[in-house]
């Protein structure tokens, strides 16, 4: 991206930031709560995107990382009264340690096998939280009455948005560096990356650590926003699919795409709620996802950039010179 392109992109980030900061002045508290969930989903989807969208290592066990962070801060605050400014960093660290567990199978497997191994991690933690030391984890009912970081819809909205916005910009900048390019190259042909003298192990470890840190931050803040954590809420397959669909629908490997996808998906589900109150609305969003992914594999981000290229706002990338 040249200087003009970078300037335009930063301007887009600034406009997005300003619009989102003004939102509490124009929408109801109820709508704001919808956007809080969208912010958290965007963080989860970006975290997934760094591993799976960027390096091509498809993770089906991302809630494992979120759950490790969520349970760490929940147990520390619930049982030991550890203040949030200590429990949340501890949760992020725990998620990063969990990220290294994810990384070990990535040294030997990829594709379907890697996806299944990560799914097994999630299922394992799902089982463990329910049966091992239920007094500590809260068992199947989980832990509730957790302290919140801030109270009220507006402060929670600003907190979730500002953290999501900061994570988005940092990740977006990372993928614009040569490390980001190398991570994309791993997705396309890992052996070719090795043959150019790049240490793919270190690069993947970096991606996994960044992803785990983001999942840790988002997971810890999420449980304190909800005020509770339960195995079904975190490790349910619907939660995993919502993260995956948000990233894929928005545009995998782009960082901005998962943000767009998260907002689109959350708003779509809320828009459908008055008409289809039950879980049947997931069928509608599944259909929308299917159609979009079939006709626009680069996701909503691809559609938006295509439109912006057509109207001349941005220059086409990868065009024939």
């Amino acid at each position, binding site marked *: 991206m040249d200087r003009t392109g970078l300037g335009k992109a930063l301007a887009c980030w600034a406009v997005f930031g300003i619009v989102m900061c003004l939102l509490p002045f124009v929408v109801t508290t109820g709508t704001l709560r919808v956007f809080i969930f969208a912010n958290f989903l965007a963080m989860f989807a970006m975290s997934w995107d760094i591993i799976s969208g960027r390096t091509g290592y498809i993770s089906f066990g991302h809630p494992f990382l979120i759950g490790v962070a969520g349970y760490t801060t929940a147990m520390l605050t619930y049982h030991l009264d550890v203040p949030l400014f200590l429990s949340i960093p501890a949760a992020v660290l725990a998620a990063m340690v969990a990220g290294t567990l994810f990384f070990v199978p990535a040294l030997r497997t990829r594709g379907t096998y890697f996806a299944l191994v990560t799914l097994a991690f999630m299922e394992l933690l799902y089982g463990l939280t329910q049966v091992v030391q239920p007094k500590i984890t809260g068992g199947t009912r989980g832990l509730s009455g957790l302290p919140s970081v801030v109270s009220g819809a507006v402060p929670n909205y600003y907190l979730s948005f500002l953290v999501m916005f900061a994570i988005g910009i940092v990740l977006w900048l990372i993928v614009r560096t*040569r490390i980001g*390019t*190398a991570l*994309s*190259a791993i997705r*396309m*042909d890992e*052996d*070719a*990356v*090795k*043959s*150019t*003298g*790049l*240490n*793919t192990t270190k690069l993947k470890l970096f991606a996994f650590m960044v992803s785990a840190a983001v999942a840790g931050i988002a997971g810890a803040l999420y449980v304190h926003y909800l005020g509770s954590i339960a195995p079904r809420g975190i490790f349910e397959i619907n939660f995993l699919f919502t993260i995956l669909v948000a990233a894929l629908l928005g545009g995998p490997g782009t960082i901005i795409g998962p943000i767009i996808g998260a907002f689109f998906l959350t708003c779509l589900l809320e828009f459908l709620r008055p008409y289809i109150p039950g879980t049947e609305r997931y069928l509608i969003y599944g259909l929308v996802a299917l159609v979009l992914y079939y006709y626009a594999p680069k996701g909503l981000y691809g559609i938006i950039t295509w439109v912006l290229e057509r109207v001349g706002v941005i220059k086409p*990338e*990868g*065009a*024939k*010179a």
Partner: protein
Amino acid sequence: MALLEIEKLDVFYGKAQSLHGVDLNVEAGKIVGIIGPNGAGKSTLLDTVLGLTTRKGSVRFDGRDLAKIAPAKVVSLGIGYAPERGNLFPFMGVRENLLVGAYNARDKIDENLRMVFDLFPVLEARQSQETHTQSGGERQMVSLGRALMTSPKLLLVDEPTIGLAPKVCLDIAAALKKLNEKMGLTIVITEQNVNFAMSLAQEIHLLETGRIRLSGTPDELMKETHIKETYFGA
């Protein structure tokens, strides 16, 4: 002392042995051709030099044993590799593909880019073009360029003419000759196209079923009945 010394090299893919006791020395400043049919072990030999396979035997580069050295480190020691069919990153532009090769020679990026664009001017005009939209010849040029971006002392080129038009083969040959004669780059090239290898290399080795069958200069090998019958149908 040879720049690359390979001694008693055995390579295995699981239980299947692909190379059997291969001995090969590559002197600095030479172009060495490895010819042979499909499945002879040519690509395996180059992959093994880079450390991408499981092996027994010794591979030394510039006096240094490459056993237990990771491929990334091998490249940083001065071995550039242009694999068969390029193995490019299809949804990246030409320039990005070249820059992925530049991580080990970050201080020479501009200099190496200039060298690649001088060698293949068509790439300079198409820097932003994604490589999946390029012709086979252009992709081969990007592959060679990416290997050159590592500032190699030894360039390994795996079947560069596969599927290419005769005119493009000549362009590739001219570029490799220029790299060897003007820049003193040592090149090991594997080829099924025996004519191409004979026209380019100063020393040829015939690899068949994982064993070196014949070695010599192109003129010497052209006199061999086996070469004449098998590769020229004489």
